[in-house]
């Protein structure tokens, strides 16, 4: 290994799927001891590029050098042999096994296991990089942060000195992110090269040494982090200037208690929901949603957000509690009851194509998904909905060949606009949105925020389940924090901080 050679050098890499270029003539150089951020919107080609580096795809053309040597990876195994380790967004761990078993799984450790020697090697690696992993702990007992640390340890154990991390902070709390960054800095100090795939700009500025920006499959630029500002990065990512401020117009007096006497639009009162294993997924949740309000819900993934939305929408049975919609208890009513009773409630579920829309059907047929219930008789009337579909396409600038194109062919942002368009069109009083901007690019995200703000201005009460705390703080009026199915805080968004929310997300004061 030549000391001066870059850890990774990719030259003129191209890869196409069908007629679309995923990567086009990309150059990327990562030095040893460098933290390199790969920045770009969804579909910019970040994952494709890294999948070629980890041996999952093969480039159509171009060459890859690792530590100065030309390589061709036929499989991920080859890439691991060269010291490249990839940490995927979705952890690849066996839940019922211990940390140690997961580490040696799939490695060439010989027939017999020497637990003592293994433990020694694991603790040696843990000490060197500052990883906190208990070898005998089972994976299902671990927090998300611990699982990620274990993933890192796993690739280090296999001899990786080049780490690729795909959206590593997506599932972490602010505190866990701090820990992760400490680990990454440690690895850098040990001479490892680290590539982070992300679209979160704040983190990029904090952790990286250099940034390569991809846009539509092309490398736009590689810059030193110290010499660049966030607006410039956004311009590189999006290709034009974007106004990144979210406006928040308050229709209520200052503070959450100003209108406490007023009856709420939606009152959730002591709702408890059990999951399949009879554990409480929601535990005595109470809150009130007012008109002219966006109520944010923060929490680590799986803290009860899905259950909260689905219980209000009538999709999930509750054990205890009441939910009042303008004074009428709707708990225990099915979605059909809710539609037929004319309760004006819109719901944008997390899984858009799996729940909110029918992927193989066109926009017209998706428009009638709920309202067909109120049609009389036997025959399905599509005429009015074809007009409505066209109106929504025009009003929300949905990019589609026609209203008769199956929605699964549209891009993520346009799919979300179809769904949101339908729910808004039903003239809701309450709009529940679960991760409405997940997977959308910056431009599309801001369009969604604008639409939600429009609804708020019309008097709608919006529940916004979010993951980006910066967005929650900027967009919402109040923020509820969920932790383990319980509300650990109800905050005035204008007066809270990320740190406070993060503290409550992990249980906090409870």
């Amino acid at each position, binding site marked *: 290994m030549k000391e001066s050679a870059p850890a990774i050098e990719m030259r003129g890499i191209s890869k*196409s*799927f*069908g*007629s*679309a270029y995923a990567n086009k003539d990309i150059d990327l150089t990562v030095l040893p001891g460098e933290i390199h951020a790969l920045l770009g919107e969804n579909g910019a080609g970040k994952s494709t590029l890294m999948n070629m580096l980890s041996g999952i795809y*093969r480039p159509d053309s171009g060459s890859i050098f690792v530590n100065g040597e030309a390589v*061709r990876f*036929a499989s991920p195994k080859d890439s691991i042999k060269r010291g490249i380790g990839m940490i995927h967004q979705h952890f690849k761990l066996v839940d019922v096994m211990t940390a140690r078993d997961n580490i040696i799984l799939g490695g060439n450790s010989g027939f017999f296991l020497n637990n003592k020697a293994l433990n020694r090697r694991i603790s040696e690696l843990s000490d060197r990089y500052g990883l906190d992993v208990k070898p005998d702990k089972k994976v299902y007992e671990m927090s998300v942060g611990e699982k990620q640390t274990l993933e890192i340890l796993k690739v280090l154990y296999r001899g990786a000195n080049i780490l690729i991390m795909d959206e590593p902070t997506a599932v972490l709390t602010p505190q866990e992110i701090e820990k992760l960054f400490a680990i990454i800095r440690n690895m850098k100090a040990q001479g490892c090269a680290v590539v982070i795939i992300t679209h979160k700009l704040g983190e990029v500025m904090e952790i990286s040494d250099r940034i390569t920006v991809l846009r539509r499959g092309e490398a736009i630029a590689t810059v030193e982090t110290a010499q660049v500002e966030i607006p410039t990065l956004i311009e590189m990512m999006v290709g034009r200037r974007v106004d990144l401020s979210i406006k928040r117009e308050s229709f209520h007096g200052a503070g959450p208690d100003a209108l406490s006497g007023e009856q709420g639009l939606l009152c959730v009162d002591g709702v408890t929901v059990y999951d399949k294993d009879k554990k409480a997924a929601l535990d005595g949740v109470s809150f009130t949603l007012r008109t002219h309000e966006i109520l944010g819900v923060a929490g680590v993934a799986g803290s009860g957000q899905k259950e909260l939305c689905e219980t209000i*929408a*009538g*999709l999930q049975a509750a054990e205890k509690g009441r939910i009042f919609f303008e004074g009428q208890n709707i708990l225990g009513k*099915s*979605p*059909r*009851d*809710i*539609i*037929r009773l004319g309760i004006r409630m819109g*719901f944008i*579920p997390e*899984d858009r*194509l*799996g*729940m*909110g*829309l*029918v*992927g*193989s*059907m066109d926009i017209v*047929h998706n428009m*009638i*998904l*709920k309202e*067909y*219930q109120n*049609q009389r*008789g*036997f*025959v*399905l009337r599509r005429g009015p909905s074809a007009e409505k579909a066209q109106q929504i396409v025009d009003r929300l600038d949905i990019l589609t060949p026609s209203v008769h194109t199956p929605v699964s*062919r549209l891009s993520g942002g346009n799919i979300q606009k179809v769904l949101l368009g339908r729910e808004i069109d039903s003239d809701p009083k309450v709009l529940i949105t679960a991760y409405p901007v997940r997977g959308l690019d910056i431009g599309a995200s801001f369009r969604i925020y604008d639409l939600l703000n429009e609804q708020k201005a019309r008097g709608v009460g919006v529940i916004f389940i979010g993951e980006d705390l910066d967005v929650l703080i900027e967009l919402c009026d109040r923020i509820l924090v969920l932790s383990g199915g319980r509300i650990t805080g109800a905050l005035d968004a204008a007066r809270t901080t990320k740190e406070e929310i993060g503290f409550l997300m992990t249980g906090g004061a409870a």
Partner: protein
Amino acid sequence: MILPVRITKRDDVPRRQAAVILVVSIVLALVFSGVVMLLFGLNPIEVYGTIVQGAFGSAMRLEQTMIKAVPLTIASLGILVAFKMKFWNIGGEGQIMMGALAASWVALNHPGLPQPLLLLWMGAASVVAGGVWALIPAAFKAKMGTNETIFTLMMNYIAIKFVMYLQYGPWKDPESKGFPRIPKFSDAAILPDVGGMHAGWVLMLILVAAVFLFMNYTKKGYEIAVVGESLETARYAGMNIPVIIMIAMFISGGLCGLVGMVQASAIEKTLTWGLSSGYGFTAIITTWLARLNAVTTLFVCLAFAVLLQGADYIQLALHVPSSVAQVVQGIILFFVLGSDFFLRYRVKWIGLARARAEAE
């Protein structure tokens, strides 16, 4: 293994190209079947020619072809309704048998009724019997999430064996001198002829139109399609999923049951345990080849009827086993299903040398 091709995903295939791929795959299937025939010492051109002759060569043969197309098409329509919901109804055979059984019960017990009344009653009984037979696995699936594939398959054997028991036991014609046979229907229970063959073909055309309209233009058809696409979406949209599953399966089984009535009344003129003749199974193939479209189903079933009738004929004319036609059917199915791959991926020839270089 190194292949001298590169395979990439492709975007949408234009309709014309898709049609070309389909036609090419059928032609290739016929060529490949020809090769198989050559291996067995048969002359494929002669065999194909004889099949066509056997299907269309005379008015009588044409009628025989249509006689096979009618039950196949109606059964396929039944299977279509279930498949659209991704409910894998493999129980067509059993539903046909139960439909035939119910129609026969009516016919044998009320031989003296006026013909229109008797036929209507037989038809209604067959629809209800086939539908109820299909409702059993549907109810278990809707309430307990059982696997419908195995369930419907097993129900076939129960139905067939039960009819066999009746034929050899309680319903055996006492005047048949020990021959295991159920008495013939009265004339009133036989479907009349319309335009040279039994009236089943009129029923077939009406049902093709009805199923097409039902699936595409009614609320229930829409619900069935949504349930087939995603149960979560159906739940979200407030659909009553168990009820939809059961209604769709009642229709599916009812259509198959009607096939039983047509066959018992017009063809066998009584109930026999072999009456379903595999139509319930062949319908799975034709429905799938027709991509769950009612109108396409009609044409696919007509083509398959040609093969079935031709197969019977080559046995007589060339003393070639009719299984040859089944081989051809199977190969066509494989090729057409395989052609799906070419709709989704583009295969480009790059030569062995380049493929080797890239693999290294």
